[in-house]
């Protein structure tokens, strides 16, 4: 199969729907038609299944961690300890696996690779990504990386925290090397996806799709893809150096061989801080779509939002040292990193104001995706504002490496990145599978997740300001009450996610059929049938203003919207 070409046709018609609609799901059948597919939609869907599966796995470990923390002393970890190990080692493995799985297998590939793959080419008006084979390759690298993680799980687990700080990570006998190799391979998967998206957006825009006509999700994805391509290699280098040190005893990070442990932290955060933006930028892109579509009003300050994505991506490379204010980094470096960190907070604040202004005067439908969009704005505001305490040099000294940081990054990585992703899943689900999920169950599940999330993590801000350090198996009894509340919240969230799993699965088999445009959106994917045809567009689509809702009318008979200009 060749890379899709963008025909320069001018027809505005989408392919006539045949009697039994032919779409990407029933286009071909059999295991191989999926396993070897080059269709970005199928690859996206496979990614989504994988990512959600890993989310369940990471979630189980989170629940184990929260349950252990119900009371000081041993709670449940002792039951999982084998004769050679102690409960605290079991617990340490739990939080390491939770963190590594959630970061490397769920959030980083979550939006770009799963939703981005499905949506990006259609939104752009292309038939596929620029390099479909590379895309499939990226998926298999993800699978192999995931298998490395599963291997370590069944082989005694891995310890060290998802940050794998040296010299501890280099000094111990657990499966650090297979886990790092897994992360290394996942890095390549991420680079492949990023490269693919950059080239697709540069080269496959159909005539008329100028940069400033692109939907904001594409701007977010573009900024993300740039970071993936530029930052991930540093992670690869770091991990190789670490593996070299561990196996060949070359002195790089371990003082024992003449290395410097703080150097590792520089390398690690040079990737991992931008990685925070790999997680959050695409979710911001989704939210820009959600708020505009479900308010049926064009995004307020489109250009500001678009530029702020790029600004965040650029500044994001210059702030890694804010993770190291207490690491023996020099005072001058601390000051510089603190100053630059504050500058990143501005574009994030601008986005929040723009989203609110988009809602102002709109025609808002409180659909399930919109509820996720609103939850995102609320949680992201808390996540962003609490970042101010950590960027300020004096207060960070108190909060660093306490539950305050844990709460802050869960607000940003789960409350924002993942909630944004779930907003996207609920928004595009009718497009992906052609069916609606049960709205009532979805609202109950949303409420449980939203409330449960705040109960779990807001409490952790209090824990952190009281001085509870992170990664503690046991703790001073003065922290007990907060831990109890936090654990209860985590069970509420778990209930919410179980309900979500139920109604999403149920919708595939028994859901109401979705019209092409159930939400009244005007970006290109909603002009295709639901689910979209195999090659997206029979002829190159006409590119109009994707945020002009004036020509989109509601049709009660089909329970969806139709477009006057582009029926």
């Amino acid at each position, binding site marked *: 199969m060749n890379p899709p070409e963008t025909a320069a046709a001018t027809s505005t018609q989408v392919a006539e729907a045949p009697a039994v609609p032919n779409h990407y799901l029933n286009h071909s059948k059999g295991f191989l038609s999926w396993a070897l597919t080059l269709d970005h939609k199928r690859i996206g869907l496979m990614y989504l299944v994988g990512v959600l599966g890993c989310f369940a796995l990471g979630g189980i470990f989170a629940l184990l961690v929260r349950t252990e923390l119900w009371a000081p002393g041993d709670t449940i970890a002792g039951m999982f300890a084998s004769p050679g190990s*102690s409960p605290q080692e079991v617990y340490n493995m739990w939080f390491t696996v939770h963190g590594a799985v959630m970061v490397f297998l769920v959030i980083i590939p979550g939006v770009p690779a799963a939703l981005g793959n499905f949506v990006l080419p259609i939104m752009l008006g292309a038939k596929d990504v620029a390099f479909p084979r590379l895309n499939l390759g990226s998926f298999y690298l993800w699978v192999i990386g995931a298998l490395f993680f599963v291997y370590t799980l069944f082989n005694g687990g891995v310890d060290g925290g998802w940050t794998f700080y040296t010299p501890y990570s280099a000094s111990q006998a657990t499966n650090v090397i297979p886990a790092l190799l897994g992360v290394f391979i996942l890095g390549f998967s991420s680079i492949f996806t990023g490269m693919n998206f950059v080239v697709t957006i540069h080269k496959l825009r159909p005539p008329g799709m100028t940069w400033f006509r692109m939907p904001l999700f594409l701007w977010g994805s573009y900024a993300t893809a740039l970071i993936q391509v530029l930052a991930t290699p540093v992670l690869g280098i770091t991990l190789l150096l670490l593996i070299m040190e561990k196996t060949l005893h070359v002195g790089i990070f371990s003082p024992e061989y003449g290395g410097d442990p703080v150097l590792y932290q520089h390398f690690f955060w040079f990737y991992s801080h931008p990685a925070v933006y790999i997680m959050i930028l695409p979710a911001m892109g989704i939210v820009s779509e959600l708020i505009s579509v479900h308010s049926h009003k064009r995004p307020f300050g489109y250009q*500001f939002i678009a530029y702020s994505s790029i600004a965040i991506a650029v500044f994001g490379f210059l702030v890694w040292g804010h993770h190291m204010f*207490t690491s023996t980094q020099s005072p001058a470096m601390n000051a510089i990193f603190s100053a630059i960190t504050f500058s990143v907070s*501005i574009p994030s604040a*601008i986005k929040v104001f723009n989203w609110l202004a988009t809602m102002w*005067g*709109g025609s808002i439908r409180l659909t399930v995706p919109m509820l996720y969009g609103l939850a995102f704005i609320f949680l992201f505001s808390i996540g962003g504002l609490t970042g101010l305490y950590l960027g300020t040099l*004096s207060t960070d000294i108190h909060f660093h490496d306490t539950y305050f940081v844990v709460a802050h990054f869960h607000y940003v990585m789960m409350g924002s990145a993942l909630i944004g992703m779930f907003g996207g899943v609920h928004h595009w689900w009718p497009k992906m599978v052609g069916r609606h999920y049960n709205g009532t169950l979805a609202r109950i599940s949303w409420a449980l997740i939203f409330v449960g999330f705040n109960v779990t993590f807001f409490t952790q801000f209090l824990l952190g300001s009281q001085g509870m350090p992170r*990664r503690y198996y046991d703790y001073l009894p003065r922290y007990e009450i907060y831990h109890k509340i936090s654990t209860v919240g985590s069970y509420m969230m778990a209930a919410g996610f179980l309900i979500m799993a139920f109604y999403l699965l149920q919708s595939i088999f028994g859901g109401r059929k979705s019209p092409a445009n159930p939400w009244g959106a005007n970006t290109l994917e909603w002009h295709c049938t639901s689910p979209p045809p195999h090659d997206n567009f029979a002829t190159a689509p006409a590119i109009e203003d994707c945020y002009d809702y004036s020509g989109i009318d509601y049709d009660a008979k089909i329970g969806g919207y139709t477009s006057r200009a582009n029926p």
Partner: protein
Amino acid sequence: MAGSSITTALGDLGGLGSAGLAWLETRMVGLLAEGSIWTTGMPAAKSNHAGPIDSDYAFITIICTIFFVPITIALVYFAFRYKKAPGEKAESDVSHNTPLEVTWTVIPMLIVVVMFYIGFRHANMMYAAPADAYTVHVTASQWSWSFLHPSGAQMGGDIGKLSPDRKARETTDPDLGLHLPPGVPIRLVMNSTDVLHSFYIPEFRVKQDVVPGKTSSLWFTPDLPEGDEPDMYWLLCTEYCGKDHSNMLSAVYVHPTMESFLQWQTRATALDPDNPVESGAKLYVRKGCATCHSVAPDGSGPNTGPTWSGLWGLSADEHQVHEGSPTGPKRGVAMTGEAGEEYLRESIRNPTALWREGYIQPMAAVKVDDTELFFLIEYIKSLGKQ
């Protein structure tokens, strides 16, 4: 150095800002004072650094509230105010408003400049200790703290233990832990013998990583205790360091008077030459050996290192010892001879030279002088093969 000139430059710049800030601080003094509602959530403030940090905390909390409350109100209000039936068109089609957007960019920018500056200024006060500070050398190793005072008094940390009803963590011995004289600045000079650790006392608002191969330091002046008893705090390790990271605590005492501190110092250094075994037992605790070595006949207790119970006189077969250390170059030569005087001296003085089978990490070197070594070995002998 380039770094320090930047710091001075920033400091000069700050000179301009500090006039404005002084004004701001006098305006807000009531709001930012210790114990105001804006410092809710912070632990008790017990050192000279707590005041500045808490006032920054209060300042940020006020700013956050000013932003967060209107955002949330707008979010909820808009969601209901502009809720419409399907198909209804939006009331407005405004696409942007440049003056508004510039305003909400510039105002936060100004605010974060102030925020950066106050944080910078207060953090700078925390780097260099006053010249007259009382210096304690802190050694961190997996998973214990040890404190060496200028008087030569050395004390291991006290990790305490959970009370049977799990409602409190109790200290085990009031002489263990970090003891501090009242009313003087304290400077801690810190080294790690193995991996990263971090020294943290929430009530003092101090935190500093302890890095192997480097020396780091921090300073603070603790508040004077109100009563006649020393104030007790917990020192916590906040950098993940492996299995017992969460047990790497120590009690910290601030003495109410110099006499009380000196009494402790006398107890901490006193050894009775007529009673070497008892002195050895004291050293076992003070020097921190107790955090890794068990002395119970059934071998229960800490087991990072081999138990001392029954160690004395083990035969070469029972006592598998190799030259080298598990992580260093392994020569693997099995030692012959029993666990006697020479072997014990060598393994305490030069822990990486000899390595006992089954222990994955070598022991950290602990400073002991000849007399102390004698007492320790007498103590190990007394626990000898029964």
